[in-house]
């Protein structure tokens, strides 16, 4: 035997090289749709209108402008206030869903999701119906105005509630019954058990929920636009700088400022996520609550109250959209749905939105799922994989408004060979895919990680290409998750305003932008009608998913039954 240890030259089969190529393609899409636009945004913040490098001059100008400083402060405190209101409410609601024996949990869960399906503009419009200048319940405000912080916070509470409640419901549902039994055997009282067992488990869920709500409020554009009145916030400032003043450089600066809380929140959430690992072992026994009136009745009351508010807000928007002349002539009519009378795009805006959302859902799901599989199984490891994985996590920290701004700065640049995309449907589709990439990626990666890590190895030993295993095993098993991803993409692209407000062209105005325009033009009823129409589309898609769920289950998930 020789004493020489010759390094082994590993042959990379053609298939593996093709899979690497696929990963490269995904990287290219993410570079084009995220990294390069954000890079352009960053550069523009340090340039003047003529493209000369001016260092920090724009930032100095920003800090020196009192109105901009006030906007930043306004964004922060409204977000903080919303968080303080939403998180306890959502915790109570989630607690009721997971740790009590109240009836109708399924219905409460469905109602909880309602705001996710509606554009954020809808609660703002409904609040204007109730408390605006012609509001029915205006007297309840005792002369105060809903236009401003009060309206913003109220609408944000509605809009952010499901996001917080979902996170907390997940955090609370992973409870180990053995811990509760141990605490009880050690004679701990209810309050002590709550403080020492329940809260620690939900701790990181609470951090996550707070972070998500705070970020949503700071970065949301639709609500302050519609109900903010003269109250300036960061999101409306970006819009004003770019669309009103055509000052792209200052817009870029405000965009970067807007990025700060989002990145901070993102890092905090990452930290909480890392801390969470290992709180629940695989051998945990699921906690099953026992009925107890003293706990269940107040929780039921809370759920009823919250659900009534959620349904009520949506109900008001629907009612308002069906009324002839709010609040003086309450005869029902469909006139407000004759969108061609109010906006040049008319009904076609809705079809534009549906087409964008469909394309983003189909292309986005295919891209995201395939990429996640390549990262996890098909062609894992290597610098390329690390790069793609890192970039896939970024969109979560990039507010839609910032992404939209980055898109115009990048694609509108005269030297950009991809400039032809500007004003087309394609750019809106790309924007939608990238905007919601992280959550879709995490869903896909989680589903794939649950599969046995040796599937591809077994395939290789049997000389079956990894792509065949992907098609015959991975995709069929993950089909429910794939549907979830597609519906998530569809609903979010359908309802988002912030990312697309800068990007539409004359023939590609989406419905959510039409809502903003009709509201700006004083056509509040038509705006509400369009928002309701969007809600109807997203609700139908969600219902379709639920209905087809049974069919998909029967066709592809039969093996789950024992």
């Amino acid at each position, binding site marked *: 035997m020789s004493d020489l240890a010759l*390094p*082994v030259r590993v042959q990379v089969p053609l298939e593996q090289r093709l899979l690497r190529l696929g990963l490269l393609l995904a990287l290219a899409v993410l570079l084009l749709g995220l990294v390069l636009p954000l890079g352009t945004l960053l550069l523009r913040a340090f340039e003047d209108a003529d493209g000369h490098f001016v260092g920090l001059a724009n930032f100095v100008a920003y800090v020196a402008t009192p109105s901009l400083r006030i906007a930043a402060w306004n964004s922060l405190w409204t977000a903080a206030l919303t968080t303080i209101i939403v998180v306890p409410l959502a915790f109570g609601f989630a607690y009721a869903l997971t740790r009590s024996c109240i009836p109708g949990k399924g219905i409460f869960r469905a109602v909880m999701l309602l705001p996710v399906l509606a554009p954020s503009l809808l609660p703002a419009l409904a609040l204007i119906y109730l408390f605006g200048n012609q509001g029915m319940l205006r007297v309840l405000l005792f002369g105060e105005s809903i236009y401003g912080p009060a309206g913003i916070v109220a609408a944000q509470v509605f809009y952010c509630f499901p996001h917080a409640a979902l996170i907390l419901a997940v955090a609370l549902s992973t409870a180990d019954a053995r811990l509760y039994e141990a605490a009880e055997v050690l004679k701990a009282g209810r309050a002590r058990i709550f403080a020492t067992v329940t809260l620690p488990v939900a701790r990181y869920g609470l951090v996550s929920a707070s972070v998500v709500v705070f970020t949503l409020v700071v970065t949301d554009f639709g609500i302050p636009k519609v109900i903010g009145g003269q109250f300036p916030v960061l999101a409306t400032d970006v819009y004003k700088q770019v669309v009103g003043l055509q000052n792209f450089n200052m817009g870029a600066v405000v965009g970067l400022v807007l990025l700060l809380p989002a990145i901070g929140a993102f890092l905090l959430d990452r930290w909480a996520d890392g801390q969470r690992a290992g709180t629940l072992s695989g051998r945990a026994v699921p906690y099953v609550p026992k009925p107890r009136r003293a706990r269940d009745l107040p929780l039921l009351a809370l759920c009823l109250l919250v659900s009534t508010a959620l349904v009520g807000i949506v109900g008001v928007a629907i009612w308002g959209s069906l009324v002839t002349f709010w609040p003086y002539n309450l005869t029902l009519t469909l006139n407000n749905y004759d969108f061609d009378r109010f906006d040049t795009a008319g009904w076609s805006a809705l079809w534009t939105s549906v087409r964008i959302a469909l394309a983003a859902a189909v292309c986005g799901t295919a891209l995201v799922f395939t990429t996640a599989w390549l990262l996890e199984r098909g062609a894992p490891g290597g610098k390329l994989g690390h790069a793609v994985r890192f970039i896939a996590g970024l969109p979560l920290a990039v507010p839609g408004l910032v992404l939209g701004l980055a898109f115009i700065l990048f694609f509108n640049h005269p030297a950009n060979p991809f400039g032809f995309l500007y004003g087309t449907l394609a750019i809106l589709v790309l924007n939608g895919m990238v905007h919601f990439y992280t959550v879709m990626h995490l869903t896909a990666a989680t589903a794939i990680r649950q599969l046995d890590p040796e599937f591809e190895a*077994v395939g290789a030993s049997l000389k079956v290409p990894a792509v065949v295993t992907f098609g015959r095993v991975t995709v069929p098993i993950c089909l429910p998750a794939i549907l979830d991803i597609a519906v998530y993409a569809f609903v979010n692209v359908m309802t988002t305003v912030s990312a697309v407000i800068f990007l539409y062209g004359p023939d590609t105005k989406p419905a959510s932008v039409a809502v903003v325009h009709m509201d700006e033009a004083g056509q509040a009823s038509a705006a509400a009608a369009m928002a309701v129409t969007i809600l109807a589309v997203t609700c139908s898609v969600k219902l379709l998913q639920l209905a087809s769920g049974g069919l998909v289950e029967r066709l592809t998930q039969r093996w789950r039954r024992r």
Partner: protein
Amino acid sequence: MSAGLAEAPGAALAAAPAPYLVVDQVSKSFGTFRALERASLTVGAGEFVSFLGPSGCGKTTLLRAIAGLDPATSGRIVQDGRDITGLPPSARDFGIVFQSYALFPNLNVSENIAYGLRGKAWPRSRRQQRVAELLTLVGLADQATKYPAQLSGGQQQRVALARALANEPGLLLLDEPLSALDAIVRLHLRQEIRALQRRLGVTTVMVTHDQEEAMGVSDRVVVMSRGRIEQIGTPEAIYRHPATAFVAGFVGRSSHFDAVVDATPGMLRAEGLVLPCPATRGLLFGTQVSTYIRPEDVRLGPQAQALPGHFVAQVTHVEFLGPICRVSLEAGRLRLEADVHPSLVPAVGSDVMAALPEDRLLVFPQDV
């Protein structure tokens, strides 16, 4: 006699048919961590070889290098005369059964077994025939249309075996194939795997951390520790003639104590006792040695009295194990275990005569 000093005879004398698989100086690094250090071994055609060792010893790393799942960093692997070191798994000729079985949960038993039977070589009728053959072979002919989740652990393991054998691979790799099963099924299934392997004559490499399993089914056992091969030999050879202190301590039960080579040739001094041990004749006076003795080799009572170097020990504990009892003894600071027939068990606390037969002491010089 000592196995540690002379070349272990069992290993060299093991029946060595024409080598089918040659592993030559194979190393594997993960970053700066050396998971495998210059491992060399050969496996004969039709032989059943087990890699045995504690977790983290590199046995799975070596198996995955042979499979090409995690290619070796350096060295050479030759299968059936072909250098496969750098080949991707798909270009090699093996079937593999994983610890988790990795059955495709959305495919039924037949579809799982037929997974690798594709392409022009396997038209529908031939494929069906082969699947039926394999189902009969593993005794699952009546379970063909069930999904993996509907099968017991043992049945799943058989499906995985049938799937691995479907293409008639030249080499069968088993990665802890039995560790997910409960004790009774394990015993039964390991005998079944062995019988099947004999019948098909397929060269087989199994990774296991269970020495009883390795000893029970293998032609030869490769004992590994910390990325190195400690010994290769028949089950009897590694038990009777362990090549290193690690093997003596890891394989089978043994009592361990440190000793020093005495001035008198062939004598050992340990914890105040002087023990005859011819195996130390070649060692210098004062050499520190690790000494092992198996419980079934320790003699008690009249048997002990007949041997030179016997000593008095106190019984501290008795463990009833069915056919025998394991007696814990203390002589000064020396602690020993001895196997005794249940009818001859001394009372706890009593003093008994004990002796360590000189040809049964396993001594290994300590590297200082």
